[in-house]
């Protein structure tokens, strides 16, 4: 009886290696300076149009984009390259703390692109960065070895000047708290938090308190009630995710603190001339729309080749909050760049 039960359980356990997370698309790793970074290529590879993504954080996972309807819709027309940066998400290995420099993140991005070019033979590609991925993408467009092969750059609520981003985020938070107090919504609680902001006119991008307050005020998600939790059970037991995925975040924040605190790429953004789309949520409290406007002004791309699209009733992640609009804007930009060449 016991043996027969074991015989029933064994195939069930083994089948967790055969689900969609384990079989869809192609899967690679790139090892550079101790970091083993996973790459997942999904979607329409036959299109020959590749969109390389840069996730946020630092410390989040590019694999999380796959959970978004917006990215899954893009996969119908394009090959989408999702990967995890060093010590982030599903990345493994044991990179030394001194490899968490902007130069290393840019070189990692080059390695991922090089590996994909070796595998699929594409010459040019589109690059999309979300949040912190905006800063990494900006740095890549300035110094990356493959920067001249970028057909178009899409910044989705992306950073480029973290001290300014934090300052704008603080102002957004103060405005929001004052509204909540005026509406008498948990006024005592918010008054205490407002006091913290008044006592701390300047704080570092790595300060966790600000971001924890942001998450409770809709700064990340315009309609928090619409936020759908990731399917943690499926991810833990039947996907490439590991327990490390959940433990990397805190470690990554700590390792990248010297990199993110004070990072400002404004002075060199004029060097970038790549066609660009800045896609922003009007209600973004984490990287407010003022940062998108600043990036739009600073970038060296000619006016006719750049656009800033601000989406109402959307905060930090258009791909999750307004996926149809996100897909339409990104597809429209890609098709526009391709058509302009004809």
């Amino acid at each position, binding site marked *: 009886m*016991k043996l027969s039960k*074991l015989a029933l*359980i*064994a195939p069930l*356990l*083994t089948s*967790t*290696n055969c689900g969609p*997370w*384990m079989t869809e698309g*192609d*899967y*690679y*790793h*790139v*090892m*550079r*300076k101790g970091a*083993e970074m*996973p790459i*997942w290529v999904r979607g329409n590879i036959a299109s020959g149009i590749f969109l390389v993504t840069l996730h946020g954080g630092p410390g989040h996972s590019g694999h999380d984009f796959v959970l978004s309807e917006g990215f899954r819709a893009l996969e119908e027309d394009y090959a989408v390259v999702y990967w995890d940066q060093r*010590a982030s998400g*599903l*990345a*493994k*290995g*044991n*990179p*030394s*703390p001194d490899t968490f420099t902007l130069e290393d993140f840019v*070189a990692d991005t080059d*390695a991922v692109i*090089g*590996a994909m070019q*070796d*595998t699929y033979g594409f010459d040019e590609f589109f690059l999309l960065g979300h949040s912190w991925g905006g800063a990494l993408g900006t740095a890549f467009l300035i110094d990356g070895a493959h920067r001249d092969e970028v057909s178009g750059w899409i910044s989705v609520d992306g950073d480029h000047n973290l001290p300014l981003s934090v300052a704008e985020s603080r102002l957004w938070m103060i405005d929001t708290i004052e509204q909540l107090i005026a509406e008498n919504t948990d006024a005592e609680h918010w008054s205490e938090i407002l006091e913290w902001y008044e006592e701390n006119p300047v704080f570092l991008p790595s300060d966790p308190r600000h971001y924890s307050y942001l998450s409770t005020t809709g700064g990340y998600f315009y309609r928090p009630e619409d936020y759908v939790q990731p399917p943690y059970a499926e991810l*833990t*037991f*039947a996907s*490439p*995710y*590991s*327990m*490390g995925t959940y*433990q*990397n975040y805190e*470690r*990554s924040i700590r*390792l990248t603190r010297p990199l993110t605190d004070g990072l400002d790429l404004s002075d060199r953004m004029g060097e970038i001339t790549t066609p660009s789309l800045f896609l922003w949520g009007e209600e973004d409290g984490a990287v407010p729309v003022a940062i998108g406007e600043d990036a739009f002004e600073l970038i060296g791309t000619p006016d006719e080749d750049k656009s800033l699209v601000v989406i109402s009733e959307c905060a930090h992640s258009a791909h999750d909050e307004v996926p149809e609009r996100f897909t339409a804007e990104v597809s429209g930009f890609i098709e526009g760049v391709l058509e302009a060449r004809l």
Partner: protein
Amino acid sequence: MATINLLLASVLLAPAAPTSEEPQTTKELSPWRITAGYYGDVATHPGGYAGFSWRAAEAGRFSFSLGADLGSYHHRRNHTAVFLRGNFASRVTFESGILIEPRFVLGYAHTWADGDGYFVVDDEEMLRQRTPIGAPNVIYGMGLGFGFEIQEGRMAGLAFMIRPEVLGRAPYNSYALSQFSLLAGVEWRFGGRK
């Protein structure tokens, strides 16, 4: 933390526990056991293990053993691991044959990234496709086994075990990764009756 304290207390206090009842069958059987079964990293990433243990001391229904096991598991698109672990266990076997066994493990695991291709950037920043050489890891942790051992007849000494474990694996992104595993298998006292 409470679970860890309970396991520690079980191991440390076991020798001092009363020994009024001493099942005859336990004494009659060999101190050597072979073990084999399913090893699941976070339960569902499948693998297997095989090993042995040696009962070093016994006091009534309590016993201590030392052992080792060799195993492997495959977490698709993440990694494949081969491990060799030593263990120290304290077991209590009830008259019914039900047994409980806290166990400490310490060992070595070698892990290889799994996927459709593997690229390495060397010190000169040259990118090449390679076969992964894998990475060394120390693994350590504890588990709590539950099982049933047949006490009589021709199958006496055969036990069925299920054992959840909490493990650390280091180094991993400059920290020790916490994970869990599930072992389910059988034990057999080889060498038969004395």
